[in-house]
Each structure stands twice: as C-alpha cells, then as structure tokens.
C-alpha cells in the first residue's frame, strides 16, 4: 500500500544532509511552506544551497537559516524585498553567495530539472549583465542563453489538499513555484492543509500528480 503521509514535520526533514540543495516554494508569502522551513531550522543541516524566489524576510524561518550561517549559497530572483535585512547583511559581509536568476528562467530551469532535460535556451538576459559566463546559442537568427537545469536534493512545497498517494491540489496563487519545484526535488516534501481519502480528488483536478511527491505532512492552518 502506498502511504506517503508522515507523522510530523521533524520526520519530514529528518534526513536532510549537510550541503544539500533545498528548493523552497512560495511567492509573496502565498504557498510558502513555513512550517517545513521552521522544521529545517530545528533540524540543523548546514552548508545549504537554497533555491527560492526570494531570500527570506525578517529574522525567522528562511532568514533564520541565513542568520545562523547555515546557507552558503542562495539561488533566487529577488533576494531583497522590504524587510530582507538578514540576507543583505550576510551578503555584504561575504557570508553567503548569490546566484541571481530572472524569475521566468528560474521556473523553467526547475521544470527542465524535473523533466530530465539537459538545459534550456531562453532569450531572457541576452545583452545584459546576467548573460555573463553563459553560452550564447543562435537559432534561426535569434540569440538565446543556454541555461542549465536546476534540481534539488529536497523540495519543500506547500499545497492545500493531498491524498496518501501524494496527489496535490493547490489553493489560488499559492500554486506559483510549487509544482515545478515538486518535479525537481529528489525528495519532495509537501505540507498541506488537509489530507483526504484516496479518490476524493477527481483525477482531472490533480495539480501535481503524486508520482512527483515523496512525503506529505498535515499542517492545519492557524491564524498568523
């Protein structure tokens, strides 16, 4: 019997090794696996490479990891929205590296990683400083940058509803990066608001098929 449900957040991230690459879902707080990242803070793994749209806010959850010097590298598109003082401080002190990736390129590199592809060709960034060090490929008279696939040792995603096969349904704009990160994680962990009986999610309404998901943990919503 397939049962991907795990009993606790601690169990869900128990085996994250030092040096792991972690894919972290969410955009502007929506679909952000807050409890999973808190569990990772407790778990202790370090020398992490974090892949997300941003680089944390305030000094809790993701920012706490950076503040504790457990993140050696951040791959993201927008590390410095308002309130990202931790990343700014650590970056300027040389404690954390940054790979800045245009948001659409980030999404497509993740998809490529999850899809077993060797890379993608995108026109985004041609002629700008973000083309530095990248191979330019010309196709039909247009220049593209060769961008490499992104994969994670762990993908931490947030969804609304799951079943024990790991099928996921997202809620509204909480979807964002989660589906492509779920594909690109070697171990994909999903925290969800509710777990339903197998068959309760109609097949045509599955957003992320459970084949991409390894662990599901229930984290009912609380007011924050």
């Amino acid at each position, binding site marked *: 019997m397939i049962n991907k449900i795990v009993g606790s957040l601690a169990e869900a991230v128990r085996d994250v090794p030092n040096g792991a690459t972690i894919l972290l879902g969410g*955009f*502007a*707080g*929506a*679909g952000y696996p807050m409890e999973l990242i808190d569990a990772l803070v407790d778990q202790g793994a370090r020398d992490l490479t974090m892949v997300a749209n941003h680089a944390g806010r305030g000094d809790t959850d993701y920012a706490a990891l950076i503040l504790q010097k457990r993140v050696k590298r951040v791959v993201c*598109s*927008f*590390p*410095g*929205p308002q309130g*990202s003082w931790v*990343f*700014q401080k650590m*970056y*300027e002190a040389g404690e954390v590296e*940054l790979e*800045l*990736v*245009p*948001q*659409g*390129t*980030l*999404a*497509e590199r*993740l*998809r490529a990683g999850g899809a077993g592809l060797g890379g993608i060709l*995108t*026109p*985004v*960034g*041609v*002629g*700008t*400083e*973000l083309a530095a060090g990248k191979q330019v490929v010309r196709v039909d008279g247009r220049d593209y940058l060769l961008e490499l696939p992104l994969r994670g040792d762990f993908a931490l995603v947030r969804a609304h509803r799951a079943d024990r096969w790991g099928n996921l349904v*997202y*809620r*509204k*704009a*909480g*979807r*964002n*990066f*989660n*589906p*492509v990160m779920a594909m690109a994680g070697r171990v994909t962990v999903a925290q969800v608001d509710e777990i339903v009986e197998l068959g309760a999610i109609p097949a045509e309404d599955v*957003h992320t098929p459970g084949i991409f998901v390894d662990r599901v943990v229930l984290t009912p919503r609380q007011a924050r």
Partner: protein
Amino acid sequence: MALTKAQMAQRIARDVPPGAYVNLGVGIPTLVAGYIPPEAEVVFHSENGILGIGGPAPPGEEDPDLVDAGKNAVIVRPGAAFFHHADSFAMLRGGRVDIAVLGAYQVSAAGDLANWKVPGGGVPNVGGAMDIVAGVKQVWVVMTHTGPDGRPKILPECTYPLTAKRVVRRIYTDLAVLEVTPAGPALIEVSPGVTVAQVVAATGTALTVPEALQRA
C-alpha cells in the same frame, strides 16, 4: 502642467484596448487597472500565476493565498485562472500577453530598457523584469521624464545596467507620450500646459516632432 502619477495612469488606461491581456508592473503601472472599467474585459496577468485580477481585496477580506506580484491582496473576477510559474512566464515569453506596463530608470533611443538595477546599488534584484519584456507584444514604460536631479531619462544609450535591448514601444511620462520608432523616439502628445520645447529640452536624445505638434 506635468501630469501626476494618477493622471499618467489614467492616460495609459485610455490606450488599452478592450479584451487585451495586460501585465502591470509594481508602482504607477498598478494604478492603471483602476481606470479601466470592468466592462472592457481587460484581462490582467500577474507573474505569480493569475489571469483575471479584479481589483484590490476589500478591507477585511484579504486572503493570504490571493496576492499579486507586489504582494497586494486582490480579488479575481469571473473568467479568472490560476496556474504555476512556468506556465505564467510561458505566457509572457511566448508572446501571448498584449501589453506590459512598467516603470524604468532609463530608456535609450533604440528602445533599450534599464529598470532593474542602479549602478553601485546594494543587493541586486531582478524578479521577472527581464522575462516580462522578452516576448510581450508591446512594452509601455511609464516614468517621470527626468530624474530627481533633473537629468533626462531618455538617452542615446542607457548608462544603467540593461534589462533588455530594443524592447520599448511607447513611453508615457509626466510631460509627454512618445513612441519608439526605427528613427528613434517620436513625440506623439504633449501633456496639457506643457510645451514641445520643454519636452525636447528634457529629453537627452534627438526627438522627432511631427509637424502638427511643432506649432504647439
């Protein structure tokens, strides 16, 4: 009289055709939506995976799972769709979005855009800026004609790091509306109370002024 931010947004709104698919950047661009009537059925795209944004969420009804790219709580209208990030940027890069309205630090005579980084700035952020302009059918920039120090923002070449080359189609400023043509920027319209001479003086590169406006 130079236009205010609200007036610039209102001016842009007049040019958006009914039924268009439009992406609005953070800042003045988001004000544009408020001047487009719902009956026009303009479909607003948000890079984080929404088509059909209906406006800001009423106070007290904010849903943390329903925010736009600027982290504002929004509502959606009938016909809306949610999708993931790769699909969202496929719509932009793949040329399905008709108009992107965004701010800028500088625009060059050839339509190069600089709007993501200032030289010597701290932590660099790029977000979706480069992707948005890569495939959208028309890029409309909205910005003040000159910087706070009075320096022109429309220049022969951008001096700030580029977002993309040769993408800008139209520039809406507090002083004028300009179109980027193969011959460089052309003046289309002057703000009420502003003279052509003022616009030319505030522009850092040669401006084509059609005869009809030369008398203004």
